[in-house]
């Protein structure tokens, strides 16, 4: 049953999202977006989806927020021409269209037939999946195909970002050089946060085998630790042609493909043998976490950029 808290939370999410979309000030919009993501994580907790809450807080709010802030500061430095303001008629039409879509969705929600979904099917097969966490079982075992393609999408996005580097800057260190005031907040956070984040990240990967957590949530926390350290200027960003980095990027997807091909030869594509599933899943999760952490962090760092001022 929905409590007043649920109603208030939903209202708050909508108001904060409205500020993020409609607000005049770009920086505030990004801050509201991050707030909206954190409130959404609360909503996921209320919906008993702890795994999604972790992913939303870490990826949806955290890393996407950092990406938006970094892109915004880069855009500001370039001082691009102002975008033409849209015609009021276009705005009105867009408003009517968006309202119609929402109204249609609300009608669809009310017309939905009752369904128990695939809960029973998952619960029945869970003992043979090699993990007690049903979400991890679906991600890595029952629907491993989705997750394999997802890791490849991550890699493809990184390749796309890297292709935006100028020829002169390739191959260099990823992103720009970062300088911080030694007594600033970020420099302090850069020292305090990473050790805690490392422990939490590794714990989340490990605990994903039987409780909410997993490679994606844990990998994101590890990526965040790396991003904070580099942004605080305490560590240099990695070189994009570093062999160790390339190995870290590829470890997870390659392990996944190897398992898939091995399964194919054994007659079952991306299905783990029940007796060895636990060990295989744990190893796969660990490698995936490393690759996800490295890929997400490098997506935030961006393509190598001109660092000539640094040496001058």
């Amino acid at each position: 049953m929905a409590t007043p808290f649920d109603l208030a939370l939903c209202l708050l999410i909508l108001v904060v999202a409205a500020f993020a979309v409609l607000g005049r000030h770009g920086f505030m919009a990004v801050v509201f977006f991050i707030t909206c993501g954190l409130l959404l994580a609360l909503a996921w907790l209320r919906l008993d989806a702890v795994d999604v809450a972790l992913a939303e807080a870490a990826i949806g709010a955290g890393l996407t927020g950092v990406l938006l802030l970094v892109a915004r500061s880069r855009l500001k430095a370039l001082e691009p021409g102002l975008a033409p303001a849209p015609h009021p008629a276009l705005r009105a039409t867009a408003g009517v269209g968006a309202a119609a879509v929402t109204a249609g969705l609300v009608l669809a929600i009310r017309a939905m037939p009752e369904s128990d979904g695939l809960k029973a099917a998952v619960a029945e097969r869970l003992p043979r999946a090699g993990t007690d966490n049903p979400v991890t079982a679906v991600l890595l075992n029952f629907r491993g195909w989705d997750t394999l393609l997802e890791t490849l999408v991550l890699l493809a996005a990184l390749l796309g970002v890297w292709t935006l580097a100028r020829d002169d800057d390739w191959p260099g260190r990823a992103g720009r050089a970062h300088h911080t005031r030694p007594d600033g907040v970020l420099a302090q956070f850069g020292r305090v946060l990473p050790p805690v984040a490392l422990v939490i990240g590794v714990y989340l990967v490990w605990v994903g085998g039987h409780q909410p957590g997993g490679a994606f949530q844990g990998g994101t926390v590890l990526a965040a630790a790396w991003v904070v350290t580099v942004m605080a200027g305490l560590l240099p960003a990695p070189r994009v042609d570093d062999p160790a980095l390339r190995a870290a990027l590829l470890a997870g997807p390659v392990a996944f493909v190897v398992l898939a091909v091995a399964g194919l030869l054994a007659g079952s594509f991306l299905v783990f043998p029940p007796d060895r599933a636990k060990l295989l899943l744990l190893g796969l999760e660990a490698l995936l976490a490393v690759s996800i952490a490295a890929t997400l962090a490098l997506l935030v760092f961006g393509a190598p950029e001109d660092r000539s001022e640094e040496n001058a």
Partner: protein
Amino acid sequence: MNLPIWMPYALCGAGLVGLGLYGLLARPQLLRRILAFNIMGAGIFLLFGALARRGAVVGAIVDADPVPQAMIITGIVVAISATALALGLIVAHARAGGGEGLPGDTPGVGERDEPGADEAADDSGSADRDGRRDEREGTRR
């Protein structure tokens, strides 16, 4: 009134989809469009997740349907990948001399965003290109 717990969240998701769609269509700045697109995606995830919560048996081992949850986590990761690439393209577009919007957009008479003063936003920032940052630091101390 005995509202099931998933209902307000499903409606909230529908609202987020509408808000995001409006921002995607009516906002001229590319960065704001990407932000709106992410709001729309979050709305779709919330709607999907709320519907997955229907008919959950309290006290059972499996509370909410895990299959939609796994798909949503996959979706969140794909969304950040696409967002990172899109933001990279926007910055490259601006670096190549394009504006913060698309050239094909029809100019109207609406209001523009405030340029905004978010210098206090972060104390990280970039390698300083023109010394403006040093001045700023100087005035702040």
